């Protein structure tokens, strides 16, 4: 799954829903979300991923992080929670 553009409170519900829908269709497969082309995030993006993690646990991973994403996810202390080692 590739996410582009900006992620804030206006996108939180849609992002959680899209992750849920992926797991509905793909069952136990791991989902690696690519945030390499995201221009802006704030804490609402972190919140969306933490919410989704409650449902899907370690099957939900983030592959690439753009610099703005890494900055906010590092501050939140969640970067390693979603770390997809193969993409590092």
């Amino acid at each position, binding site marked *: 799954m590739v996410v582009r553009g900006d992620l804030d409170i206006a996108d939180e519900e849609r992002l959680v829903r899209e992750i849920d829908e992926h797991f509905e269709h793909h069952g136990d497969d791991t989902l690696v979300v690519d945030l390499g082309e995201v221009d802006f995030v*704030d*804490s609402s993006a972190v919140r969306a991923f933490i919410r989704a993690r409650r449902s899907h646990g370690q099957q939900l991973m983030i592959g690439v992080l753009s610099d703005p994403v890494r900055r906010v996810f590092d501050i939140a*202390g969640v970067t390693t929670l979603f770390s997809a080692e193969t993409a590092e």
Partner: protein
Amino acid sequence: MAPDRRPTDPVRTDDSSDKAMAVLARETRSPSVARSWLRGFLDDAGLPDPVQADAALVISELVTNALRHGLGEIVARATIGDDGHVDVSVTDSGSELPELQAVDPERIGGVGLHVVAQVSDEWGVAQFPGGKTVWARIAIHAG
């Protein structure tokens, strides 16, 4: 009567060369509206992109907090100080005061203020009868 508002416009703005304010609706698009407005103001003032990005991130968190926890109309303000900083603030009519909590990666919520605290030099809350203002000071570092 005000002209019809475009989706990307604040409810109302009043910007001069070193001070600006925007009234924002209680809508989830308001953090995005606030970022565009603030970046435009700082860009007009000639401030470099990294400062605009820091200020935009902080205002986005403050407006989001006002939406999640506050009450009523949201007023965003920005002032360019003559000693190398930008002050941004967000005022709403809620009485609940933000508090910095310990970082807990598994908890939902509480991250926004950490972002504000990390990105700004200083931040604080001013309470008044009928509401509160959360402010933050951002250094104008070399671009």
